[in-house]
């Protein structure tokens, strides 16, 4: 796609853009500009991944991005029982043991690595503090945690499926949660 070669940028270098040394309406303006740049970057990444994944006449679905994973918000992972996660590694060396934390609403999930093998997972409850911070913007009850491995300057796609029944619970690693009063 020609769009892959467009120069997208979301960088603001003036100290006003990052440090709070600006009036509030200027802060709002910087936030808007950074958001516009980030969305443009996401479009470029989406086109690039699609061009790599395309097989024959089958177009892969457009990539979606989640900017609020730090407060457990991601519509795609919350609302779908089956979804894929594509992880692109910009480093010129393999990355192993990088952990993803995805907001979900199910109790148990199976995760398949690019080679089809199951991946160890752990489920954690979304904390009350996170729920308070995100307000009405999301409603995930849990976070799905699993490690990913990505080759240098490459991408890996993991397939995630909400588990039904007991068969897939073997991947649900045991954990102990202790509430201390």
């Amino acid at each position, binding site marked *: 796609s020609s769009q892959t070669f467009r120069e997208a940028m979301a960088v603001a270098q003036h100290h006003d853009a990052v440090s709070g040394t600006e009036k509030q309406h200027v802060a709002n303006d910087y936030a808007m500009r950074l958001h516009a740049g980030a969305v443009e970057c996401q479009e470029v990444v989406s086109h690039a991944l699609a061009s790599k994944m395309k097989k024959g006449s089958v177009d892969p679905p457009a*990539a*979606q991005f989640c900017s609020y994973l730090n407060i457990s918000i991601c519509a795609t992972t919350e609302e779908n029982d089956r979804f894929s996660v594509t992880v692109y*590694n910009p*480093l010129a060396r393999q990355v192993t043991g990088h952990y993803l934390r995805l907001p979900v609403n199910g109790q148990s999930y199976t995760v398949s690595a690019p080679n089809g093998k199951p991946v160890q997972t752990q489920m954690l409850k979304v904390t009350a503090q996170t729920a308070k911070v995100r307000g009405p913007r999301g409603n995930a009850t849990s976070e799905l945690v699993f490690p990913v491995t990505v080759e240098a300057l490459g991408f890996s796609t993991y397939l995630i499926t909400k588990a039904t029944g007991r068969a897939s619970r073997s991947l649900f690693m045991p954990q*102990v949660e202790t509430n201390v009063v």
Partner: protein
Amino acid sequence: SMMIPQSPMMREDTEIHNEHLSLIFDSTTGLLKTITNLKTKLILNVQQAFHWYNSSTGNNDDSTQKSGAYIFRPNDTEPLPITTKGSVITKVVTGELVQEVHQVFSDWVTQVIRLYAGQRYAELEWTVGPIPFKDGLGKEIITRFDSDMQTDNKFYTDSNGREILERQLNHRLTWKLNQTEPVAGNYYPVNSRIFIKDKSRQLTVLTDRSQGGSSLKNGSLELMVHRRMFYDDNFGVGEALNESGVFGDGLVARGKHYLMLESPADSSQLHRNLGEQLYMAPAVSFTPNTFSTQDWS
């Protein structure tokens, strides 16, 4: 691996560990107490907690300089602790991939400390805000690590995105300093990392954003994570740094600190390696999927 307090009389310390690090939390306060590098057998006695500096509103005879958007100027050299009654630990989660200790310091300061399997660092995810404003006191919130290291009043920052520079308390390399601001005058920009070290140990903290940081006494390391104040500092912005945020009661900031305890000889390579992984982290995208694994392949 985890000892759970049973009653006030039988409380024991809480520990989480992976194959590289062990973190021990005090039974009474719930604060981080000891870090052990299980591979190198390095042990650091360190307390980590949140404090706040009360912002100056302009009480200096020579100037009426207030703390504001441009200026960090606390009205005292000692920050006030942010504490709760009893232990700050509210929850401990153990599992094979990640172990977590959840801490609540106040209504507006919480933290989750994590150890992921296989990782050589501890992750401290702090959530600060909305900073209370009804008392009218400007607040500059810091996280502080107080350790038993003898650091000779020196610390190191990667200021300005350039090489790591040695900083010495109340000292400038190229001129004789008349220090009039004992706290702010020793604060330096931290773009990605700050560390302190002695002969055998180095405590390195990587940040996920630029922050101000310092070491105001031996073995101590602090980073400012959030601030809110009610006076303009007269440097041109014409507004106090008092953002109300989307919900109207103030901004909530959430970020991460990555903590490493290694020997000074090993640390340089390790924190650079980790820095690359953090600052050029894998980019994640999602798609709803209707394919089986085989069809996808």
